[in-house]
């Protein structure tokens, strides 16, 4: 079962992400965190069960999405964790900084819900196909 951690402080976006993934990927378990400081202990605790992917907002109070990426990528044990930035930011420099810090994807967060759902769905499909266990 695929598990996704979502780090998002906006109530509206939390609701939209939950609805979108629930519709396109009912088999995916989604767990929400409101800030970087909430999700980090969950990911870095000894023996923690890791999700398949972490979906990150960039602009959050306290630790920013970029800080979270840097923090996670500084830990070798989390090297295979897929980090996807999901943001409405248009700043190319921010996108470059996220990649430099170790993000796997930097995805535009559309306004329209149908598009929002499609973008999330394609992102999940892509990373599931790239990291799906392959039997010999």
């Amino acid at each position, binding site marked *: 079962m695929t598990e996704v951690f979502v780090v998002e402080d906006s109530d509206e976006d939390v609701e939209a992400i939950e609805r979108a993934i629930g519709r396109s990927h009912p*088999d995916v378990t989604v767990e929400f965190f409101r800030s970087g400081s909430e999700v980090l202990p969950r990911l870095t605790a000894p023996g923690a069960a890791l999700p398949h992917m972490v979906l990150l907002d960039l602009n959050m109070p306290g630790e920013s999405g970029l800080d979270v990426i840097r923090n996670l990528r500084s830990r070798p044990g989390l090297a295979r964790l897929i980090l996807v930035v999901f943001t409405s930011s248009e700043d*190319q420099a921010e996108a470059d900084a996220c990649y430099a810090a170790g993000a796997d994807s930097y*995805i*535009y967060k559309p306004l329209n819900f149908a*598009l929002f759902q499609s973008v999330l769905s394609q992102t999940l499909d892509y990373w599931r196909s790239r990291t799906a266990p392959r039997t010999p």
Partner: protein
Amino acid sequence: MTDGGWAGTLHGLWRSVAGIGARDELADLVLPPLCTLPGVIAAWGLRYGVDRRVSAYRWAGVPLVGPLRPLACSLAAAPPTSTAPPATSSLSPTSPTAGPSPTPTSPTAGPSPTSPTTGPSPTPTSPTDPAFHRPAPPGVPAVVDVTGPGALTEAGVVAAVVLHLDVAGEWPGTFIALVDATADTAFVGESLTQVADVTAEVLRRLAARRVEQQQHTRDALLAEASLQMDAVLDSTQTMHRVPRMAVPAIAEGCLVFVCEDGDPELRSAVHVDMRRLSALLNDPAAATRLAALAKAAVAGEILLDEHDAAVLDSRSVDLQVLRARGRVIGVLIFLFDRDPNHIPPSSFLRDIASRAALAIDNGTLYEQRRHDVMTMQQHLLPTRLPVVPGLQMAASYTVGDRVLEVGGDFYDVVSRDDGTTAALIGDVCGRGVDAAALTGMARHTLAALVAERVTPARAMSRLNSRLRLDGSWRFVTAGAAMFRPVTPISPSAPGSPGSPASPGSPGSPASPGSPTSPGSPTSPGSSTSPGSPASPGARGSQDFVVEWLSAGHPAPVVLQAGRPARRGRGGGVPLGVLPRPRFGRSRLTLSPGDTLIIFTDGLTESRDERDRMFEDDAMWTALNRLREADAPVETLVNELSTAAVKFGGTKADDIAVLAIRVEGSPHD
């Protein structure tokens, strides 16, 4: 079997059809009821996917796991022992258009959710499942004997009733009902056919819903892309926005090539997996091929062939020429990993490309126009102010509006060889090329005539006549301040009037003043003349008499030590309005340290959100603060302009400000 018998069960299945939202939910709906048929021990379902492999195993009853999977495949492929009577109804699960080879629209291959009766299964392991090469035609149930030792025979299974399902545009599948010796295989076969009818209907509905959803998503993408691309006039930003909008909504990767001097250059690239993109662009073979594809495309040739997908590390590639206003301006290259049926049609990609091309071209044209405006505006203003002994001068020009029009404000300073310095300022009503042409004409007419010792009144009269003669509807407000030292100095003295500062000379500005870039009104461009070069005693502390002539221009401001800033007199009628111009005249004496500030109405009439004008109150606050701080003239013009722009926000007009200060310390 339910109380209503098989007919009731079947009725329940049909009623559930509308509630199924995904193919993965189907097995839970249709397989368990089959197990309620007399003599049926298990019901299995196989779904086929890419390369004709079984992509999903489903079951009710005996779990379809381990060695039973190859067995299921062989049952599906086995020649029938007998053929069960086909369904008598016209409801065949095989669509009339269904062919032997599937052309699915939704290859939702992969594991499905678990349930008590259906379980997850790994992806298939056999290279090519024999089950696909089924001997029985779709929709016709076949009975296959199950013999020999094994778990199934131990469970009492003696035969399998097999039915293949084909629905146009969907991955095919196979139903297998394992029965014991008591089963009526004809009835089971007919029931399987009926269940297949239900399944086919669900698949058709899901396909229709999927197509509708895809269209809805594409419509939304077009709308949002247009919104995003039209929101900016910066071509670079647009080039980044296009692939960001496209990925991953319509493609896994998108590259934007835009022509620079005829050759396409990669300007932006986005991939859902940027590490793959980075590797791709660093791969010489891929980079070379991308460049070749783009170059050929802008030349009208499509080189794309079947090898390109592999070279570009993708499952498929699409290329769309960016064409705007009849010109090819670049190429969009889309990289796809997704199933072909999830790739948008070419017409949609063309539509995206044409909108992107127009947005990029608009941005490029805007930037060219902005550059032209900047160049023209620079020609309308003096590149430097003359150095006049005894006077310090600074000017600023702030473009307040963000529209791409040249403003009509102008100023100039003429230093005559008779020791008189003329500070000129004016404002042509309106903006744009016509206004700019008139602005240039007005400034040069006034400056040239005044330099030839023509009086400002006569110079303005000539300009008035010219405007009237040309029949221009535009009028010009103008002001001229003639500075004359109370005690004339020798023309041969160092730093004499009429000698502009040479570049690099002491006291000359390091760079010529220039108009501020449109859209950045908070940092006024300025030109300065900090007074006489280092020539002690050239003129010393000296009073100047100033004669002010106004043709409908805002009255100047005088700053003097020890007293609040005060307004001079304006008056007169703008040039071009009356056959005989009417002027306002005034005269004052400036002592060392005193400053005359002349400006256009963009300064005074800057309005805040409550419609108060800058000159009502805020201007005086700023002026008195600057006077008390003994601010240098360049600081004075810059801060005054900035304060007016901040006061007026985005509504600010162009602002020209020229300050002339008499050198020396104020008289005690």
